[in-house]
Structures are given as C-alpha cells and as structure tokens.
C-alpha cells in the first residue's frame, strides 16, 4: 500500500475560537477547504453516486450534492453519539460499553459492502474512543467502494481541553460554512502518524494543515 507523504498547506483565516473556554456564538463562519475541493474534484465527472454525510441533514449539503446529480445519505453522527453515550460527563467513558458501541454502529453504519462512493465524516471521528474509533473506521472501509474518498477533519491543537463542535455546510465545492454547536472534550488527539495508523487499511492518506489548527485529511479507499 502506498501512502502519500505528509503535505502541509495553509488555509483560510481562523475559524477556531480564540477563547476556548467561552461559549461560541452561533454565527457561521466561512472558510476555504482544500480537502473539500479535492473530494469534489475526485467525483466531478460522475453522476448517480451515493455520498455519506455525517453532518446531519442540512438544506445546503442536500442541495449541493443532489444538484450534482448524486444521492445523499444524511446522519447526524454527533447527535447519535450523544443519544447513545450520554452527556458530557460520561460521553467518553460510556464508549467502553460494547453494548452501546454495537448499538451505535448498527444505527449509524449498518450498510452493505461498497454502498458509498464518498464519505464526508467531518470532525466526528475525534470524539470516538478506542476501540469504537477503529471499529468505525473499519466499518467505513467496508461500506465504501474502492477508489472512493473520505474527508475527515481533526483538530491539531493537542493542549486544548475542549474543542469546538461545528455544523459543516457546503457553500461551494471548496468553501465551507461552519456554525458552532458548542464545545466538547475530544476522545483523543491525533498526529499524522496516528492518523496514518488509523487509516492503514486505506490506499492513501493526504493531509492539509490549515492556519486554524484544523487538519484536513483526504483518505482514498
């Protein structure tokens, strides 16, 4: 399996709140996204694809993807996580419960092999603890078609106690709108090596590091 080398590129102005302790104002911010641009470039000449969107149903994402001629499958994974594993205090600890983990995987990723031609998982993976995280990534591998792409975001600042949660809305093929949904403690922090290990079953992993400490990862199945 070949892996692309780590590549860093600067992105758009800061979308990451400066005062991490403060409650974020629910004002959307737009930012350029090289990862999103690459994701849509990979499918630009195709139609009737099935795209998995972990952001939950939004008019923007539905309209954008269906206007391209594709079908979208929406699921608000963060909401499913909160409903399955509870509130802030127990959210990570409850992910050690295999019964709840099984329920989460059944409710979120119960699809047959090769069901999707692309997956927009946004920043949801960083709120999953092991072994649920690896089970989820393995499940994504199973349900994605070969040569399809997955886009994921990981906050790169390891010293933050909490990181912002966003609703991700597609504005254009390379522009996102991020609406804050609050703050949450991540289950773990990632560096490039840990991300390569996480996606080791996949064909390739490419990184884009942005000025706002957000690591965009494009993974090829």
């Amino acid at each position, binding site marked *: 399996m070949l892996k692309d080398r780590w590549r860093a590129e600067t992105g758009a102005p800061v979308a990451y709140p400066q005062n991490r302790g403060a409650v974020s104002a629910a004002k959307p911010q737009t930012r350029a996204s090289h990862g999103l641009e690459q994701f*849509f470039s990979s499918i*630009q000449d195709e139609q009737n694809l*099935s795209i998995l969107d972990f952001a*939950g*149903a*939004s*008019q923007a994402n*539905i*309209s*954008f993807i*269906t*206007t*391209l*001629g594709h*079908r*979208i*499958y*929406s*699921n*608000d994974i963060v*909401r499913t996580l909160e409903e399955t594993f509870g509130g802030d205090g127990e959210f990570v600890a409850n992910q050690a419960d295999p019964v709840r983990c099984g329920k989460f995987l059944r409710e979120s990723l119960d699809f047959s092999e090769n069901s999707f031609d692309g997956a927009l998982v946004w920043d949801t993976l960083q709120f999953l603890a092991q072994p649920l995280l690896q089970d989820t990534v393995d499940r994504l591998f199973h349900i994605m078609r070969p040569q399809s792409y997955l886009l994921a975001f990981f906050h790169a600042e390891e010293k933050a106690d909490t990181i912002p949660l966003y609703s991700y809305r597609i*504005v*254009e*093929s390379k522009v996102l709108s991020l609406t804050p949904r609050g703050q949450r403690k991540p289950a773990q922090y990632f560096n490039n090596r840990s991300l390569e290990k996480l996606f080791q079953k996949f064909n390739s992993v490419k990184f884009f590091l942005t000025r706002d400490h957000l690591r965009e990862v494009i993974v090829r199945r």
Partner: protein
Amino acid sequence: MWNKRKEEEYPPKAGPAPAAPANQPKENPPMSTAPAASHHVSDSRGPAIIGKSVMIKGQIFSREDLTIDGEVEGSVELHEHRLTVGPHGKLQAGVKAREIVVLGSVHGNVEASDKIDIRKDARLVGDIKTARIVIEDGAYFKGSIDITRPETSKAAATPGAKPMVSTPSPANAAVVSAPGGDLNR
C-alpha cells in the same frame, strides 16, 4: 375523532343544501351545528383531518388533502394530494403523496412526486424520493435522499447551483396548488 364529514353522505356538488329531516316542524328551520361549508363536497372545505387522539393501524388511501395529527401504523397514499403530518402526528408508515409537509414524526420511506417540506422540530427517519425538498434548520432527518429530476433539467445541474426548483417536462406537468398556507420559501 374522525371528522364527521367522512362518514356522512353528502348531496352532489350541484345540489341544494340538505333537506330538513321529516320529523322537524316546519316552523323551525333546520339548524346545522357544523359550518355550512362542511356540507359541500368541494375542495374549498379544507383537508380531511385525523385528530391527535386517533390511532390507525392499516392502509390509508385518500383522494383529497389529508392532515394527520394522530398515530398511523401502516401506509398512507395520496397520489395527487398533499399530506400534512401535524406536530402531534406520528407515522410508522410508508408514505406516497404529491406533496408532503412534516411537522411531527415519520418513520418510514417517503415518496413525493412534487415536494417534501420538513419543518423545524420535525423528525423523519427513512429514505426520501422526491423532486424537491426543503428542510429547516432544527429538523432531524436520517436517511437517503433521491431527487427524481425531470429529464430536461438534469443536464443543467452544475456544482454550487441553487437548489431544487425543477422544471416539469410537458409530458408530466402538474399544477401544484396549496390549499392553505404558503410552503414556498
């Protein structure tokens, strides 16, 4: 309760108002306890309504607009009409209609030949097939969305284009009339 209009037999549209019952004295004109419009079988009377205390298990077929504010388990079909799932409505059913407005909860696959409108606080779990979809922020949806565009508009689809308004082809053009309220946003 079922709307009484569903159970009574009404005179034909062109006919006069219903005659007074034979045992009523002539000097007391018949008094209707229901609004006069309810005795007419025209579309202007409004949609049929399944109230919030009603629970139905089975199949519902309707040839008029229908509002469901109760519970339905089974299937609902209104091919040329609008279905409104009210805020108290709970459907565990497959749904087919010309237009579907969801303010309550639907668990099942949904097919609308024209449009689906999912309002804030609504909940829809299931696969959607429709020509147009509007979903408000705050609505919960989980499932797939297939936009069934007419052939003439497919070639014009470009990235970043504004959504959903599709131009019907002459062969299947339909007049969309909303009986009440403007769902267009």
